[in-house]
């Protein structure tokens, strides 16, 4: 009576054999955005890791080198700046610090955003209405404005890099909350959620076990987006002089560049490196987020 079930299916079936690495490699080949983006970010990471191992990064602190505003030389490969910092050391440290601010704000933002998105999107009710209101209004107010006001009031107490991350996080949870909420709204109507409910699965379990795993690509894409905008916001604030003044972050470097008119005075070794690194960082983040977009939305996938 049992069926002779052959292993097959329709034309677009996948082979049953699991070949994860092959799958990953094949996918990366078809998704150049992701590959290039990841490569760029990897380069920056390597720059920091190798750099801090090989180079003396203590010279990133102000007044640590005697010769100020020295063009690149054998001893200082990227020269020095006006406040007595070895620019190479600053770049190495700065890359990490700026990334760190971005990661703190980004991760915090996505975590908080996800939690409220699920609570609102799945359970609806007054919380959802409140959430929607806050997010919609919050997103229309220019974020920089909010952050500037907050930063101005805090800066006198001496801002550290980590506190900077927290400040930026105040704004960075809004966008993830909105996108993830709309995903949750859709997902909760799917038939398999209904099947789970009919199988006796409770609300929180549905959120964690049924819906969340399917939203990982979105959350990842959200994270990358969050990190990008957090870095941008932090650089913006720092450039205005509202950041952690003593820290050798990329944004603060630009602040000093402006403060000391380095561009007008032709100190190219001072203003070019931070800008170059910021460009690589953003291009990398952008390409990764484009690539993740394609992963998260199968309809955008090119090919099968």
């Amino acid at each position, binding site marked *: *009576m*049992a*069926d002779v*079930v052959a*292993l*097959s*299916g*329709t034309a677009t*079936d*996948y082979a*049953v054999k699991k070949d994860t690495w092959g799958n990953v490699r094949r996918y990366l080949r078809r998704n150049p955005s992701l590959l290039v983006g990841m490569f760029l970010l990897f380069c920056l990471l390597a720059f920091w890791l190798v750099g801090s191992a090989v180079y003396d990064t203590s010279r990133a602190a102000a007044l640590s080198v005697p010769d100020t505003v020295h063009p690149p030389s054998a001893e200082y490969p990227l020269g020095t700046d006006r406040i007595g910092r070895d620019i190479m050391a600053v770049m190495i440290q700065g890359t990490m610090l700026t990334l760190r601010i971005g990661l703190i704000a980004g991760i915090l933002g996505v975590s908080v955003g996800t939690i409220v998105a699920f609570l609102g999107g799945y359970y609806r009710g007054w919380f959802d209405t409140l959430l929607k209101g806050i997010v919609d209004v919050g997103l229309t107010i220019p974020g920089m404005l909010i952050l500037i006001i907050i930063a101005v009031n805090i800066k006198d107490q001496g801002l550290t890099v980590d506190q900077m991350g927290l400040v930026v996080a105040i704004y960075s949870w809004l966008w993830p909350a909105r996108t993830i909420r709309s995903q949750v709204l859709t997902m909760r109507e*799917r*038939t*398999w959620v*209904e*099947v*789970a409910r*009919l*199988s*006796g*699965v409770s609300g929180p379990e549905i959120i964690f076990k*049924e819906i969340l*795993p*399917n939203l990982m690509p979105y959350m990842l894409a959200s994270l990358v987006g969050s990190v990008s905008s957090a870095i941008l916001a932090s650089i913006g604030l720092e450039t205005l002089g509202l950041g952690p003044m003593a820290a050798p972050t990329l944004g603060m470097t630009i602040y000093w560049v402006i403060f000391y008119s380095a561009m007008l005075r032709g100190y190219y070794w001072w203003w070019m490196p931070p800008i170059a690194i910021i460009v690589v960082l953003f291009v990398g983040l952008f390409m990764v987020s484009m690539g993740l977009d394609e992963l998260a939305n199968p309809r955008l996938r090119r090919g099968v």
Partner: protein
Amino acid sequence: MTALLEARHVTKIFGGGFFTKSYTTALENFSMTIENDPPSVTAVVGESGSGKTTLARLLLGLVEPTRGQVLYKGEDLRKIGGRERRVFRRDVQVIFQDPFEVYNPFYKVDHVLTTPIEKFGLAKSRQERDSLVVQVLEAVGLRPEETLGRHPHQLSGGQRQRIMVARALLLRPRVILADEPVSMIDASLRATILGSLLKLNQEFGISILYITHDLTTAYQVSENIVVLYRGNVCETGDVELVVKKPLHPYTRLLVGSVPLPDVNRRWAAEAPASSIGQKADPNKGCRFANRCPNAMEKCIRETPPLYRVDEKRAASCYLYDDKPQLRSEDMMEVFIKGTPRLKTVVGVQ
């Protein structure tokens, strides 16, 4: 004896809120019981807009009736909570139409079987659980080694749907609502799924409510049939009578429109709607009046009640107003009960 699952004068209206004037009556004054003793197979047939899907959702407690009640063991579903509700969730299972949408793409197909086992405490150990899974898969004619451990897209629609039937079996429900279980499956695979469903009815004593637009499979599978049109019951009773000698003009139209795989019986010309019927208001009177070739003045004014046309059949049509009337809650009287099926083999070459 209280019925297991009962719809009592249920009406469901969508829309018609504060700001909108337009509303849709999905189901009107519908009453029906589903018993388990003896187990029955009843078909609810209708096209889109007939209310059949709404009926399924009402019986599952996924939506609440606008008027009337849905009762489980005599208690209103809306008032049942906690432990009693869990029992309800075990007793009344559903098989959905889309064999793909029911699977969470993140998990392997096993997930859909292990979850209810876990949640309802059907097994005390991992081993027990696994053997239970194997048991139900084999009961529906699937080979565990060829279905377990796979992702939904690696299996055919027929296999996926059969796993859902197996899942329904796991919980030993008393009623299964099958909502278009085979309409998205290839023709050659439908037979096995329908066979599995019937097997659940015969071997495990589970009552089946088979909801579909496909008259042919409804005829093959069920004993009794309810034909819905725009929220009202047109004709109901013994499926042999209703399908072979339809009385209600809509049933006649439906039966006549089924494309039979028989070149000698091609579609006949459709009888045009009567001129009286054209004046009908879509929300008043007999819902079929505006398409009915036999429409009369009476039909436009008032919705016809159910008339008991035969011992085992009723139709709501004024053409038969000389027959005794039947209240909606007594509709079940025309149902045949517990007829043994003549052939039960799920035939395979």
